[in-house]
């Protein structure tokens, strides 16, 4: 086990990419060194809780991009107090970070191509993943779904993803109208390939169902409320197909779809 980093990282950029959605670039060579696609970090988003600051708990965010040059990027959406405070951080300020943590994607997919599926902020870990697979010579197609067009990331940022990018929105304001599962199913019907997905649980359940139908391997990255992020609190568990629970922060966040009790 490589040592986990715990300390302050300098903010290089904190830029809005879409409605409520930000790209946070950090100078973080320690995170870049140990980070693998699908792993995450815990970020202190507000003033120091040891001095009375709130929120109390760190917030988990997937590694959006690992590198270049010891940089690590996070992609996040403002949904509450912590992410709201994060959106106010300015370049040059420091953020207390713990990570990289968790069990990431298995990028040794043993296939010539792969389908990546991201729902909303589930897109976050897929850039690091797509770049990794691309380096391994795997042809990547990313299916990226949002509820409304306003949430779809800026063109120039989506252009960073290697391979093909298929955007869907429920309101039809950007890309194809509908759910992200529709083009995925079509693609699988045309050509089988392993599926790697991240997003809200109902979406992941649907994706896992489709992958199962087409008999392709499927990895899913789950979300959960977390306190410690390091396996101690048992707060982040998900139901396991074989009974009992598994910790999303240690055994996950990435699981084989069949491990999960949907």
């Amino acid at each position, binding site marked *: 086990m490589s040592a986990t980093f*715990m300390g302050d990282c300098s903010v290089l950029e904190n830029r809005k990419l879409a409605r409520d959605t930000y790209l946070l670039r950090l100078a973080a060579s320690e995170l870049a060194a140990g980070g693998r696609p699908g792993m995450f970090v815990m970020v202190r988003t507000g003033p120091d*809780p040891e001095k009375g600051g*709130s929120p109390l708990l760190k917030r988990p965010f997937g590694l959006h991009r690992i590198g270049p040059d010891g940089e690590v990027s996070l992609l996040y959406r403002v949904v509450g107090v912590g992410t709201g405070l994060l959106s106010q951080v300015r370049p040059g300020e420091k953020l207390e970070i713990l990570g990289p943590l968790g069990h990431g994607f298995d990028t040794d997919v043993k296939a010539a191509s792969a389908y990546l599926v991201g729902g909303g902020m589930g897109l976050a870990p897929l850039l690091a993943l797509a770049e990794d697979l691309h380096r391994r010579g795997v042809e990547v197609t990313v299916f990226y779904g949002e509820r409304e067009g306003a949430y779809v990331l800026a063109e120039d940022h989506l252009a960073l993803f290697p391979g093909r990018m298929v955007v869907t929105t429920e309101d039809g304001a950007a890309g194809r109208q509908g759910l992200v599962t529709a083009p995925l199913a079509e693609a699988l019907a045309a050509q089988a390939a392993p599926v790697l997905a991240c997003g809200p649980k109902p979406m992941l359940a649907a994706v896992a169902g489709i992958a199962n139908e087409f008999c392709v391997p499927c990895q899913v990255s789950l979300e959960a409320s977390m306190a410690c992020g*390091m396996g101690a*609190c*048992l707060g982040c568990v998900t139901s396991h197909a074989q009974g009992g629970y598994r910790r999303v922060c240690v055994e996950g966040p990435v699981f084989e779809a069949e491990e999960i009790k949907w």
Partner: protein
Amino acid sequence: MVKKPDLSVKLGGLTLKNPVMSASGTFGYGQEFAEYVPPAMMGAVVTKGISLKPRHGNPPPRICETPAGMLNSIGLENVGLEAFVRDKLPWLKEQGAVVVANILGDQVDEYSALAEGLDHSGGVDMIEINVSCPNVAAGGLAFGTDPEATAAVVRAVRKATGLPLMCKLTPMVADIVSVARAAVAAGADVLSLINTIPAMAVDLKTRKPVLANTIGGLSGPAIKPVALRLVWQVARSVKVPVVGIGGIMTAQDALEFLLAGASAIQVGTANFINPRAAMDILAGVEKYFAENGLPDLSALVGRLETH
């Protein structure tokens, strides 16, 4: 040169090198924190509560944040006595940790069976009895809400083992002193308090409780004033040492508990916020004692002067 203060403390025949312990359920079995806290540096490691058989715990969501606090409804998920002794205890002993095993049960017999098992296992230095579990035989209120039920558990455990016993009190009672006295009379060598306070959070969007279990335990800075009050009330009413728990985030918090009468303290939720919290607190306590010329713990413990 300032003499290094002696922070050792005697708890029920066991001597700890310092008064900083982990709180059960917030430090795993020690190994999770190995990168940050060498277990031998702590006064003692209190392990996650164990039951006779493994428990799966409650369905998720199990935690959520509240103002200056958090709720958890882990539901006492644990590996069970056997796996604890086989898989968890040896690592802690190799590391040279003083181990306090926290135990829980649905009925008095489960507690005594656990104590017996731990006693036979060797390697456990003290048992902490969590009496905040529903007393199934008596309708589901926690053992710890009733002096007699508390005493029954402690008495049974006392019979089952010669190990030092620490009884961890439940905060949500009208008269903590009577429960504390009952636990001591039944054989507790040490009292620890407080456990979490039953509480709840509501999600207005889904119109459901945030936790799948509806109710969870409140911990963190929010409960510190309640914990301080209970520790103060208990420490001045019993003759055994008291271990303070509840919202301890900093050395200053720890020192406040010592003043209020705690002979040692446990660090809980703070471990989640700063995995090095226990070491930072210990360093801060040492510094305070050195800077204030306090030779040992007795120079501060219980020295609160009321107005």
